[in-house]
């Protein structure tokens, strides 16, 4: 190789490499590139308690670095003899959307872009036609005459389509009926989002933005710990609360008492009483066979 062709080739190569690097700029701007620790992390179900302790310590440090407060992260396991069921009284719901925002505050959802697990549908009386539903109502006062409101969130199906389609088993149904997501295992393919008939799953297209002072420090591994860009999330019945015996946040804030939650295996629980005594209850889109653990009922 003579001097001239060497210079020419190396000039072309340098320019080419520089251009390649510059063209990868969007990729370089992506945050949350996995650390070795997270990259080498075991599958959730294969983790021994000692492994989990390490992971929880890592998450604690990450959250502290990012948000400047030390969270209390735990891995809450399902309780024995418990199957969670949610009942929602459509006669009582006034459509005030307080549940939506209580959920966001409890579960450390991104504020901008907005990620919300609950959508409140406004529908005209006399039908249950979701085609006629409206999300963006904003009148001076709710409830409005001639309409009823139907909050929709993850229905925690007994036969969840989202779990079936996950190619990496990053989402599964636990023994208390809650379908959870391991945010460290999710690859962000969004198959589950497409499979869900209830539009209950949310994808973090960008890095979630949560103001530091709005972080809820009571966190769970499969629940409300902060997510990163590129993973799915959804309602998990507030496992950091409910697996300690508390009510979920959306129920606590409901001013109308329309939301009822409990253990369906306990015959004296509120939800068992509702399913036994209330005359009408529906499961949303029950004809598709997902068999939700979320029941809508009416006061008749």
């Amino acid at each position, binding site marked *: 190789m003579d001097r001239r062709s060497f210079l020419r080739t190396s000039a*072309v*190569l340098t*320019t*080419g490499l*520089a*251009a*390649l690097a*510059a*063209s990868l*700029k969007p990729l370089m701007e992506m945050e949350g590139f996995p650390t070795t620790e997270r990259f080498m992390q075991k599958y959730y179900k294969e983790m021994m308690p000692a492994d989990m302790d390490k992971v929880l310590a890592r998450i604690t440090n990450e959250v502290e670095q990012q948000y400047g407060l030390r969270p209390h992260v735990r891995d809450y396991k399902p*309780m024995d003899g418990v199957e969670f069921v949610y009942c929602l009284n459509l006669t009582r719901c006034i*459509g*005030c*959307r307080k549940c*939506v*925002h*209580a959920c*966001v*505050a409890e579960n450390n959802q991104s*504020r*901008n*872009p*907005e990620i919300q697990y609950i959508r*409140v549908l406004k529908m*005209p009386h006399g039908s249950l036609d979701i085609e006629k539903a*409206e*999300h*963006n*109502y*904003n*009148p*001076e*006062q*709710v409830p*409005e*005459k*001639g309409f009823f409101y139907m909050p929709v969130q993850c229905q925690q199906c007994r036969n969840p389509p989202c779990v079936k389609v996950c190619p990496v088993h990053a989402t599964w149904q636990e023994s208390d009926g809650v379908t959870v997501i391991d945010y460290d295992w999710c690859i962000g393919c969004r198959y589950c989002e497409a499979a869900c008939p209830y539009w209950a799953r949310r994808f973090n*297209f960008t890095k979630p933005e949560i*103001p530091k002072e*709005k972080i809820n420090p009571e966190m769970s591994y499969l629940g409300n710990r902060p997510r990163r860009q590129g993973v799915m999330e959804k309602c998990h019945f507030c496992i950091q609360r409910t697996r300690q*015996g*508390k*009510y979920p946040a959306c*129920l*606590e*804030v*409901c*001013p*109308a*008492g329309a939301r*009822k*939650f*409990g*253990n369906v295996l306990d015959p004296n629980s*509120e939800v068992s*009483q*509702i399913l036994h*005594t*209330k005359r009408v209850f529906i499961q949303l889109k029950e004809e598709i066979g997902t068999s939700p653990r979320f029941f809508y009922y009416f*006061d008749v």
Partner: protein
Amino acid sequence: MNTESKTRTTLLLLTAAFAGLAAIFLANPSVIPPRQNISLVDTNFLDRSTWRRSYADLVKAKEDLSDFDCYACHEKNKPPPLRFDAEQHLIVPKEHPDIVMHHGSHERNNNCYNCHNESNLELFQTRDKHELKLADSAPLCGSCHGPTYRDWEAGIHGRTSGYWDRALGEMDRNLCVNCHDPHSPKFPGRKPAPGPHPLRGSEPKVAHAETKH
């Protein structure tokens, strides 16, 4: 064309393509509309307290109960007379400005002594003349609203908070009057919390025309 010149052409083309891409990204033309500035939700919408405070709450919090001292104004053993207008609607005396009588859509439940005891105003009475204390108002409501009272006792009607698992903690119960104004029990309308915002661009249009009240 020999191999060397082919390689060179390919390299040159690739370089040009990458340089072009680099120019586009570096110039960063704003083809994407800017993100919306979404303001944080008013913390009033996160408030978990009930809409009203019951007499039982006031007793518990040891607050001023002088409003409930009926005989500061009324005379003992002398039931205050009731006045009705031409349409048999109760005329609420001006000394009770906070009372709006609207119990039931039929407007026929308009007699104070359906619930208050005329011979002792500091007690309630059911229609079958059972006397009840002011703090113990739920059975009074239940004496007419049987099915709702049954539901309330089972925890189905009304707000609950605290623990669903009674083994781990208490479930907090509310009285009827923690949410319902006994003189006008229907919930007043409220401004709803803000709806979902789109990531970019303008707010979506509302499909239905909003109903006016």
